[in-house]
């Protein structure tokens, strides 16, 4: 064959072509594999899947070691959509006790990515949550017939007592806002977080530390095994248990006797500031906010006109009424305005320059201790009048500022910072407030005189009132009230061990305590005179434009070495002596003498009788609120000069929670500006 050497040269073109191609590919591979690090990093994140393992949430005990809140496994029916085959829907519906339409609806919701944001065909999707134990058992038996279905276990909160919902709170799934606000980067969608109560305030201790399992994941998201045989996994650390300072039995007792009433009971151990009971009424069963009906129940509680979610003990700002008087006695003595023997006249009231604040019959003139015992209005009005007029102060403003500072020292006007969310700060006016609302130079002692008897602008939470009681019991100091006695392995938080000491001498507290003892032995609190317990007390009857007066009792016992200080506040119940005093006495007795059948039956009887006499307290109030949506702003002595009194909130330097508290309008948070007091 003749060789064509010209054409043979073309082998170089063809060979050259593939040499060039291989060279280009080698160059590209060199770039991909050696120069560019990006791909190794992606490969790592590609194939590893970190699965969070959840720690068990801390359990909650009461002060005596009774288990109050614990964890229990809950079972969900889940399915991996891709693995599900044709199945017997009739049997499935029968076991789940669902109608076919309901089942189809659940199925639709599960497989709709809009509703089920975590939807994936290859990972388990929840279909029915919180199976009851019988359904769970029956499902277990036949699950093998339903490929792709499985039962997954979760932990849910369980409650041993139908009580203390306001203290315990609840947990809920985190929302976008929680995740955004979370500076620890702890939460991921699907996590639970405390929503109310100590579940919220002690969230960081209760939740524990998450662990992680590093798994190997394939392209379809299927888990193929553990990375590095689990050597890099991190074990979760269980949440810390809480021991409440609450005596759960006393709490239950308090909730029982508050049935059918609106109001609060706060009981504090004076020496430690530990809250023994924090009752709000009406309340609810904490178990309502667990499980699949949580949303429904929550909405119901929110729309309930009696606001069971509103913790009246710490969120309601009420006029303290006559329970305020001891603070005034203390200030007057400390400021040298009065001494124990100073007497003021009171002829059925404080009558000064045409202003009259009524009072009831008692001897006149009267000194501090009898005034406390009889709850005399006149004494305290005169005291405040003489203090504000006193020339030892530069002017009215500075006199008022001195007065206000004492009030703040005693725990009024600001949050006490109890370890529960959404506490109200109450309200103590200052000179600036009156200068702005009435006008500089336009107000004087008589304009604001109603504050001397805990009315007018004064607002306090039952907690603040109880704290005053504890301060008097301690003869001059208090420890910030708190509901958690200790956190396991952590102990008690430092802020709940520090003493707060108002700058008032111990002897004046002693004087006031004696006056309060006199109220029990021979004054307005005779109903609380429990033999052998040396109860000291002070009643309050707070006038209220909505209807019956609020009934208030503040006290502690025994007089020497007190073990318990309480405040009972019952809305629209009448005279303090009528309702709050007997309730308070029962709580004191229940705590100091311990559980007995006698007191339980007495409490039940009392409670039943009260319910019979006041069957419709809730309904009545609803109607009234609807009829008089804006009766909250009766002109008072203070606002008489202020024409813009249409809006009770206007101009008040309230914080957000206070406004919230007022807007949600449980009875009693009304800013009563009436200077008349019947206590």
């Amino acid at each position, binding site marked *: 064959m003749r060789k064509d050497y010209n054409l043979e040269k073309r082998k170089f073109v*063809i060979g050259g072509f593939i*040499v060039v191609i291989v060279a280009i590919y080698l160059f590209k591979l060199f770039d991909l594999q050696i120069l560019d690090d990006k791909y190794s990093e992606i490969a790592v994140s590609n194939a590893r899947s970190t699965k969070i393992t959840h720690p068990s949430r801390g359990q909650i005990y009461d002060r005596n070691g009774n288990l109050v809140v614990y964890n229990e496994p809950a079972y969900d029916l889940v399915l991996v959509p891709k693995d599900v085959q044709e199945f017997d829907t009739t049997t499935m519906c029968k076991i789940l006790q669902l109608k076919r339409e309901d089942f189809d609806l659940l199925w639709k919701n599960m497989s709709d990515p809009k509703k089920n944001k975590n939807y994936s065909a290859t990972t388990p999707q929840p279909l029915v949550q919180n199976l009851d134990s019988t359904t769970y058992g029956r499902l277990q038996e036949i699950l093998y017939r339903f490929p792709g279905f499985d039962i997954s276990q979760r932990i849910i909160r369980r409650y041993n007592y139908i009580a203390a919902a306001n203290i315990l709170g609840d947990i809920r799934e985190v929302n976008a806002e929680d995740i955004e606000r979370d500076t620890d980067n702890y939460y991921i969608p699907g996590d639970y977080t405390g929503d109310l109560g100590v579940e919220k305030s002690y969230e960081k201790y209760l939740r524990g530390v998450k662990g992680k399992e590093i798994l190997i994941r394939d392209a379809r998201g299927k888990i193929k095994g553990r990375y590095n045989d689990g050597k890099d996994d991190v074990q979760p650390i269980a949440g810390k248990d809480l021991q409440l300072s609450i005596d759960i039995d006393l709490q239950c007792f308090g909730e029982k006797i508050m049935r059918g009433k609106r109001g609060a009971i706060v009981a504090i151990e004076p020496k430690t500031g530990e809250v023994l009971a924090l009752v709000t009424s009406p309340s609810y069963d904490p178990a309502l906010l667990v499980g699949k009906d949580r949303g429904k129940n929550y909405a119901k509680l929110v729309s309930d006109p009696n606001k069971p979610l509103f913790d009246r003990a710490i969120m309601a700002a009420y006029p303290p009424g006559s329970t305020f008087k001891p603070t005034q006695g203390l200030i007057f003595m400390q400021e040298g305005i009065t001494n124990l023997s100073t007497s003021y006249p009171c002829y059925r009231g404080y009558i000064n320059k045409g202003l009259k604040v009524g009072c009831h019959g008692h001897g006149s003139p009267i000194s501090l201790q009898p005034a406390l015992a009889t709850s005399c209005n006149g004494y305290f009005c005169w005291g405040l009048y003489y203090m504000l007029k006193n020339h030892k102060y530069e002017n009215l403003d500075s006199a008022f500022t001195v007065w206000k500072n004492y009030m703040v020292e005693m725990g009024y006007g600001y949050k006490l910072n109890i370890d529960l969310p959404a506490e109200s700060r109450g309200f103590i006016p200052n000179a600036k407030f009156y200068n702005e609302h009435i006008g500089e130079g336009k107000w004087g002692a008589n304009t604001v005189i109603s504050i001397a008897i805990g009315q007018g602008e004064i607002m306090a939470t039952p907690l603040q009132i109880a704290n005053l009681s504890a301060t008097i019991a301690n003869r001059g100091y208090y420890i910030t009230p708190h509901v958690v006695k200790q956190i396991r392995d952590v102990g008690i938080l430092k802020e709940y061990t520090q003493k707060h000491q108002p700058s008032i001498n111990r002897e004046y507290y002693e004087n006031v305590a004696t006056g309060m003892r006199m109220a029990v032995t021979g004054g307005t609190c005779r109903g609380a005179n429990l033999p052998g317990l040396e109860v000291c007390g002070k009643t309050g009857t707070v006038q209220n434009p909505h209807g019956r007066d609020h009934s208030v009792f503040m006290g502690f016992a025994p007089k020497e070495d007190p073990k318990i200080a309480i405040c009972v506040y019952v809305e629209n119940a009448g005279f303090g002596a009528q309702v709050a005093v007997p309730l308070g006495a029962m709580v004191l007795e229940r705590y100091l003498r311990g559980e007995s059948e006698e007191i339980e039956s007495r409490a039940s009887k009392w409670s039943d009788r009260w319910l019979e006499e006041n069957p419709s307290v809730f309904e009545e109030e609803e109607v009234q609120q609807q009829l008089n949506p804006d009766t909250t702003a009766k002109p008072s002595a203070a606002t008489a000069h202020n024409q813009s009194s249409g809006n009770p909130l206007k101009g008040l330097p309230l914080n957000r929670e206070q406004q919230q508290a007022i807007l949600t309008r449980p009875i009693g948070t009304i800013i009563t500006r009436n200077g008349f007091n019947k206590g």
Partner: protein
Amino acid sequence: MVSTRDNNQDASNRLLASVDWFTVLLYVILVIYGAISIYAATTTSSSQVSMFDFDTYSGKQFVWIGLSFVIGFSLLLIDRRLYEAYAYPIYAIMIIILIATAFFSPNIKGSHSWLKFGAVSLQPAEFAKTATALALAKLFSTYGFQLRGWRTYIVPVGIILFPVLCIILENETGSALVYFSLIFVLYREGMSGFVLFALLCAVTYFVLVLKFAGTLIMGIPMGTFIVLTCVMVVIVIMLLIYCRSLILGRNVALGYIACALLTWILSLMGIHINGYVFFFTVIPLSLIYLLIGMFHDDLNKVLTTVIFAVVSIIFMFSANFAFNHALKPHQQNRINIALGIEEDLKGKGYNVNQSKIAIGSGGLTGKGFLEGTQTKLNYVPEQHTDFIFCTIGEEQGFVGTSAVLILFLTLILRVIAIAERQHTTFGRVYAYCVASILIFHLTINIGMVIGIVPVIGIPLPFFSYGGSSLWGFTILLFILLRIDAVRTEYGTW
């Protein structure tokens, strides 16, 4: 005199001695490396499955390999003259099988390309390459056949296109494209190099127009701008090299430069000339000049240059249209991904991106045998077939990938060398067919895996899992070895 028996003995001794054992060695290395890679692609180090377990892909591949050795050895025993004598009948039978497959085979993922024989499925298209190569070799070795004039192209192009049509009928476009690589054979046997050059230009222009369509320069798309500039450069180059006309080339080049400078100066002065205006003034003017000038020079070659320029421009404008209308959406996507126009890592670009991640994460020496994660965990699609190169890249690193490329390069260059040492046209043409097919498979498969060629589903020879592909390439290669083995025996036959 030597006895007949001795003669036979001698003949087979001679045959064994003259088989190109180097190629056989390369072949054995490649198929074993392939089977090991398949094992690596489908097993993890923790699983205790044996490489030879028949339930694994690698176990099955070893069976295919064993049978391949039998086939290869048998092919060596067949008289070489039979291949030449039966080239056309083999081709005809293959075509019939292809057509039958297209119409009667079951639908597997949209393609009708598999024939089932009991437990074994085969893809006739893989074997049709050998048949086509034989037929083409036979045609060229026909006495007096030479590529001269366009009529002589009809039969060889027909031989190439017939199986292409059949395979397109089977809906296996990727496998059909392989046959276009046989253009290298036509080139070696006398087709004008100009065709290759034109093809190169066409591919380049197509890529440039699509890739740089997004930005504007002088008021026209960047891609169009670059291609038109290329057209001007090509005109000058063709005038200088192809037409060997220094004067015309110089004049045109100077004219272009002058116009470009003028436009640049005008733009500095604030007068912006639209790109189309510029190019469609300058290029036609130069072409008119050439048409006038050609009477003084080689008429045909200058005319070719002019026509080439005009066709280039028409092609450029129709490229977009063809892309949008002639290609199916998934094909457009694959091109867009390969050109980097579109980056859709979760959707259309997922496969190639994962494949790049797998290879890229291998580094210099790789993650180690069976230690790869990306391929085994199914991040890479078809990890034991078309994307087998990923496993090598991930577990053996750059060392492994370059070794594979060098092995293939060696094999291809060896085949070209074998081709050129043939004394017969039949042998040479067949060998070039083998080389061309290997070149195409290597270029497309590796290019696709590393993301610079659009995804076209064709296997990596000897590596990708599958009996058809392995057997197809074994037959292709061993027929060549048999033809080559007796090259010294006869000058002609």
